[in-house]
């Protein structure tokens, strides 16, 4: 009896996690649960009315497709560029710090400032356009803002540094002696990358992909500022915004948010499931 009582007595050390648990409950679990419940209590109709409306109105369900069309290629582009660049910068050199600083600056800018800069640079009367016309390289109008391309460029500028920094930390975490060992065993630079670096980097690559994808999927400011929010870049977060702040239908907005979360979850689950099949242990070469 006393043994059972002792086992049931809570460990006082558990109190240490209380602040984190409270924070999570207040700022994540409760709002999420509330939104979830709200999405099933529509203004009119039965409990599934919001979802039925979303998937029957082309103006709404197309936003999911548009968001995927934007975020998937941009994420692949960012991760695909970050990997080789981070790999090339894996050795500590004098210019590594300069390149890193240069590549990281966009992170500090924020999407609104990037959009602002893009409008003056890439806009129809922007510097790029003026420069090309001055040299008569390309005389036609340049349309890189207020369309799909504009949002892609904006997401690449703001998302790349994030991918690069993550990949750089994964790459530099790999013991360079492994590649040297592979070299003494007859592996040239390409085989060293394929046999040693790539398999050890794949789990990190999957993680980076997930984080970058979630970030790109929730694109909002650049879709409005440098995109065409009424058509080609009408992303899902925009649909939620309109429902909440233009139609004041919080229930519908919650339903859109739930669908958005679910779409993100699907991709993340697929990528993480693929990651499970990879080697995920330490990336060192042994003791020492």
């Amino acid at each position, binding site marked *: 009896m006393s043994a059972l009582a002792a086992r049931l007595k809570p460990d006082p050390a558990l109190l240490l996690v209380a602040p984190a648990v409270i924070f999570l409950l207040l700022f994540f679990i409760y709002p999420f649960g509330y939104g979830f419940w709200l999405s099933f209590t529509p203004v009119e109709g039965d409990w599934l009315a919001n979802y039925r409306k979303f998937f029957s109105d082309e103006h709404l369900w197309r936003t999911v497709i548009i968001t995927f069309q934007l975020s998937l290629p941009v994420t692949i582009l960012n991760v695909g560029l970050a990997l080789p660049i981070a790999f090339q910068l894996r050795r500590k050199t004098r210019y590594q710090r300069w390149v890193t600083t240069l590549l990281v600056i966009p992170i500090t800018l924020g999407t609104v400032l990037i959009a602002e800069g893009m409008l003056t640079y890439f806009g129809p009367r922007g510097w790029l356009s003026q420069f090309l016309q001055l040299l008569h390289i390309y005389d036609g109008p340049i349309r890189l803002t207020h369309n799909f391309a504009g949002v892609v460029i904006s997401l690449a500028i703001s998302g790349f540094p994030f991918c690069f920094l993550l990949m750089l930390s994964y790459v530099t975490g790999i013991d360079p002696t492994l590649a040297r060992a592979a*070299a003494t065993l*007859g592996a040239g630079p390409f085989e060293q990358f394929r046999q040693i670096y790539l398999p050890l980097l794949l789990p990190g690559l999957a993680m980076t992909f997930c984080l970058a994808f979630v970030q790109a999927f929730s694109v909002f400011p650049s879709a409005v500022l440098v995109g065409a929010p009424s058509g080609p870049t009408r992303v899902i977060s925009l649909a939620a915004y309109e429902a909440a702040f233009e139609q004041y239908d919080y229930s519908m907005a919650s339903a859109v948010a739930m669908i958005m979360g679910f779409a993100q979850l699907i991709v993340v689950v697929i990528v993480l499931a693929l990651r499970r099949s990879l080697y995920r242990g330490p990336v060192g070469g*042994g003791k020492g």
Partner: protein
Amino acid sequence: MNSNFKELRLAAVSRHFDNPSGQRIAALHELTLTIGRGEFICLLGPSGCGKTTALNCIAGLLPVTGGTISLDERRIDLLPPEKRGFGMVFQNYALFPHMTVRKNVAFGLMMRHTPADEMKARVARAFKLVQLTGHEEKLPGQLSGGQQQRVAIARAIVIEPPLLLMDEPLSNLDAKLRLEMRAEIRRIHKELGRTTIYVTHDQDEALSLADRIVVMKDGLVQQVAGPEEVYAQPSNIHVARFMGYRNVITLKAGARNAGRVTLEGQGLGIEGTAKQDLSGPQATAAIRPEDISIGAGPNPIDGKVENVEYGGHESLIDVRVGDSVLLHVRTGTRVQTGDEVTLTISPERVLVYPAESAA
């Protein structure tokens, strides 16, 4: 790469680098050495002496900044490591953590596109040689340090390299395992007869393994000789210090007679053997603690025991002699702190070198 080579020649191999303040530093200065097929060579020296630099230059992991390396008549110092085909065992083993032990060992053969059945046979033979049969499907992380070390050796020898390079392969193991693995490495060398260059800072390891020892300090070769010669006849005071001549005393150089020299000062008078040309007014004597004994004999020195470090069969004692010189003595005679003793040293075992400048 030809594994039936006759000799590997290092001619004035140097490796310089620029330090942050722009000075050119020689990590390795003009190493010249000819290694015959089947030899076991140890590069021995304290950390920072250039021994690992030398090994990396031979492996091709570091470009040389001067001199040439050739295998018989063929220059190899400009080839990348993957074209040299030397097997290398790294200090931290550098096993590929994501591959099974079998794949690790087969890696070199895979890169050479060895036919599957030949690969299988050779890998199995390598596992048998390092006594790891049965562990093939494990990941390196599931093995103990000693087992990982043996995988690293198997991976390097399975490609049958003309030259096997080992970079302090035992320094990460505990003392008992180190002795076992040392015997293992000697056995494998005997069985395969592969030319081996072995880097270590442990003189016991070098003495027990090597056919020839290359003692290095500050990027410079100090002595190249067989283990017995390096042990008994160090060529200079640095080698002597490194080989365990713990008593180093600088005194006035006195009368000289047929290689014998008498050193005087600090209330002492010791007869020793000159190992180098002594021209200065002072000279340095190097004596091993083991070469000093308690009792009557040549070079009698009176002193008082200051400290006794019990070591089982033998004890290490400190004896204050002359004005204030402290001598380390290893002896089987039981003494106690405060005892008055008379020490004796054979003049052949007092090695005299030119005085160290402000050492």
